[in-house]
């Protein structure tokens, strides 16, 4: 589903030798791909930004016991980043996300079910060495 990002079209941060540089073209970005590409590492760098950026909400398996949909429903104007999405998001929450017009999503998982996703929503992580630093970006998933 093609829809413009509601909260931000660019997110960047630095964590020691890592640079995160994500450009969003859709309101729902599903970050998928092989294991071990650095998706969860990128999640942890974004989560660090929650300390100073009120527009970011990060959710992962540590929230397994929480009501994820309630957390999302209470959010407004946030980039909601969900790691471990394939075990955290039930069908009902996925449908809510697909229709949410208050928040933007970065979903780390491989199951696009009930998110009304098309290939325009699917992305993978790219890591590029730049001297001692590593830049993490996203590109369309083939």
């Amino acid at each position: 589903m093609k829809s413009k990002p509601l909260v931000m079209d660019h997110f960047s941060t630095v964590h020691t030798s890592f640079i995160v540089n994500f450009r969003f073209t859709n309101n729902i970005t599903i970050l998928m791909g092989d294991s071990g590409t650095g998706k969860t590492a990128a999640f942890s760098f974004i989560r660090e930004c929650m300390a100073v950026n009120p527009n970011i909400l990060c959710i992962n398996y540590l929230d397994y016991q929480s009501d994820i949909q309630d957390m999302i429903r209470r959010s407004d104007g946030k980039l909601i980043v969900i790691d471990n999405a394939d075990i955290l998001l039930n069908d009902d929450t996925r449908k809510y996300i697909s229709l949410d017009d208050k928040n933007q999503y970065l979903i780390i998982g491989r199951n696009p079910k009930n998110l009304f996703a098309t290939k325009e929503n699917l992305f993978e992580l790219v890591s590029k060495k730049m001297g001692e630093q590593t830049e993490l970006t996203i590109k369309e998933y083939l």
Partner: protein
Amino acid sequence: MITIFKNRKDIPGDMEYVELNDLFFNQNTVSFIDKQAEKIIEMIDGSKLISKYKIYSRFDEIALDIDRLSTGCKTVLNVLYYPNKVFCLKECGNNALEILYHFENGHVFSEYALIPFIMDTVAVQSESGKKIINDYEELREWWDSEK
């Protein structure tokens, strides 16, 4: 060969199902890590096992705690060291699935199809019993058939 379940109710009562592979690995599997894990860690995460609790990261070339392995890699190692438990398959990338599907033992669960491009023979278990499948299309058909 591994055994695949597509319905939680088909998992025998005496077998534990583990959904949170990260947590299970960090709390249990880690204590069994030995030489067997080396090749798996290198193939999936591109990291080098340097001691029981440390890996050498391919990203920043420093020693990291083994908890930094990917969830897919942890899932494969959970299945390797605990072949009598059933582990959630959903967080495995294709590279992890390819290794897992060549295991001689182990049990996994997912409601939807997760099949690597290159697969070996697997056993599937549902309420109609257990059967052996060695074909991608046949396995997809089993998974997609009525639950």
